[in-house]
Each structure stands twice: as structure tokens, then as C-alpha cells.
């Protein structure tokens, strides 16, 4: 009914003001203090870089939180090259993510993010690519690799 209104892309100012507090919260939880502030800037600059390419305004919260999570992962990779990936805050409150979240548990993080954003949120590969900091083609490959891995896993369980 309100499709055209719901999917309109808000001006970046509106998007930024709506999500900045939550993004900083997520980043503080996974990175702490100063690193969170750098990651905050990087997150919204990545979002800004992709903003003109958005085709609709749905799931912007999931989108920006995924960007934040990937920025945080990049920071962890840089600072702890051999360390384990930390437990990062989840995008919660959205059924598709929760269901797919359980289903995709155990996938490599890039594949997992690609699968959830593609099939949970119906995002196109341009936007997934921006969230992952990669190309649309790499995002597509990550999603299909994730799906293949899931099929294999489900098949193995069934058999």
C-alpha cells in the first residue's frame, strides 16, 4: 500500500541521523573507544560512497549495520592478524535475519553476510558489495558459495 513511500531513499542526512547512535553502539561493543570512532567515520563514508547507487530505501538499517560489522572485522584483521574473529553484535529484531542467521551459522563471515543480505533482505549485489567492501561480482560469488556450502551441509546431514 505504501510501497512507493516506504521504498523511497531518504536524504543521506535523514539516514545518518536515524542510524548514527546505533552504529556507534555496535562499534563500541566490538572495538571499544578510539577505534570505534575511526570505524564510525569509515562506516558512514562507505555508506555515503554507495548511497547514490541505492535502488530503494528498504532495509537501510540492516545495510548500515552490516557495513559497520565489516568495518569492525577489517579493524580486527589489521590489529590481530592471527587472532580469532571476535563475536560481533548482531543485527536483531528482523525475522529473516534471525532465521537465516541460525541457518547460516558456521559459514565463513563474508559468505554468511552475503547470503543473509541477499536472501534475508533481498538486497542487490551492488549494495552487498559496499557492505562487504568488495565488488558486486565478488558479492555474488560469496552468496553462491555460501548457498553451495549450505546445500552440501544440509545434504550431508540428510544423508
Amino acid at each position, binding site marked *: 500500500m505504501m510501497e512507493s513511500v516506504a521504498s523511497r531513499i531518504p*536524504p543521506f542526512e535523514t539516514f545518518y541521523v536515524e542510524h548514527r547512535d546505533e552504529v*556507534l553502539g555496535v562499534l563500541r561493543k566490538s572495538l571499544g573507544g578510539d577505534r570505534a*570512532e575511526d570505524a564510525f567515520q569509515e562506516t*558512514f*563514508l562507505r555508506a*555515503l*560512497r554507495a548511497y*547514490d547507487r541505492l535502488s530503494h530505501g528498504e532495509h537501510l538499517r540492516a545495510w548500515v549495520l552490516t557495513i559497520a560489522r565489516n568495518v569492525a572485522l577489517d579493524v580486527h584483521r589489521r590489529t590481530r592478524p592471527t587472532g580469532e574473529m571476535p563475536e560481533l553484535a548482531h543485527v536483531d529484531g528482523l525475522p529473516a535475519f534471525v532465521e537465516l542467521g541460525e541457518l547460516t551459522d558456521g559459514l565463513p563471515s563474508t559468505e554468511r553476510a552475503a547470503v543473509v543480505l541477499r536472501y534475508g533482505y533481498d538486497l542487490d549485489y551492488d549494495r552487498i558489495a559496499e557492505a562487504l567492501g568488495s565488488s558486486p561480482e565478488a558479492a555474488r560469488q560469496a552468496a553462491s558459495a555460501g548457498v553451495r556450502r549450505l546445500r552440501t551441509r544440509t545434504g550431508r546431514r540428510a544423508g
Partner: protein
Amino acid sequence: MTVPADLDHRFRAAAARSGLLDAAFDTIDSPLGQLFVAVTDRGILRISFDSDPAEHLERIARLAGGAILRSPRAVDAARFELEEYFDHRRRAFDLAVDLRGATAFTERVLQELARVPYGHTATYGELAARAGRPQAARAVGMVMNRNPIPIVLPCHRIVGASGDLVGYAGGLARKVELLRLEGAIL
């Protein structure tokens, strides 16, 4: 968790520096009240006496693109020149203007408008004639009424044939105040 003001400022400045913004805006203080000012890489896109950004952002997004952010730094050049103008230290603006979205006629009228000097007035008919359409005084009135960049494009200097001030989109009181500031009326 609330984003601290200094982090917010740093992000907005970084965004303005990044070249990624389609437009930046801020509100600035003036003797005529708060002004909304929006700029692009081409120049000033909008000045309004209605200082509530919510009134402007959707329209600016349609004109320039959705990557719009409040950024005081991006609006500094406009802020300084307007401050000088209101402080009687500037009689002509060096700011570029971004007239995207204007029709050819509107653009021609606004270009002629920009040539009406500080402290002087012209009539709607005179401006129509200078724009090559001597019969179009009424249409020129409409263009003045919808002037996207008042003050810098001085529609306050355009008056009726009998010398009446006629009207001003920002309210007649502001027109009077601007003409007084320039010494065009007592």
C-alpha cells in the same frame, strides 16, 4: 548510545572533504533571522528564510541527488560573504550560483537580476526588457517570487513601476530591511 558532538562534526567535515556529497547545507544567523543555505560543487543552490531543513531536503535530493548532509564547513564561504554583506563590508557577492532545474527563461532573468547593482532598484518591466521579453513583467514577478537564492540574487531590488515595493517571498518587512541596509530607501 549518543554520538558525541565532536565525532559528529568530524564525520560531517570528512564527508564534505570526501567529494562524495551531492549537496551540503547548514543554517546561518543573519539580522533577518536564520537562513537555510545549501551548496553544491557548482555553487549556492538554495537560500531560504524558512530555516527548517526538513522543508528543503526532499526537493534538493530531487535536484542534486540524495547524498546530502549538514556540514557547516561546506557552507563557510557563503556564510562569510553573507556576514560581510550584512555588516556593510560587501556590496557584491563572489559566490557562484547553481541554477540547475531552472528553465532557460528563469535563468536569463536571474542572470539579469544579478546585474542590478547594490543600493539600486529596477522595476519588473525593466528586468523583463533586459531579459529580452519586455512584455513579460508578470512572468518576471513569478520568477522573483520563486527565486531560489534570495539576497545573493537580489530580487529585493525589484519593485513595481510606481515605486511600490509590491511583495517579497520572505515577507515585505525583509525586503524593506534589505533595501534600507543598502541605502536604497530611507
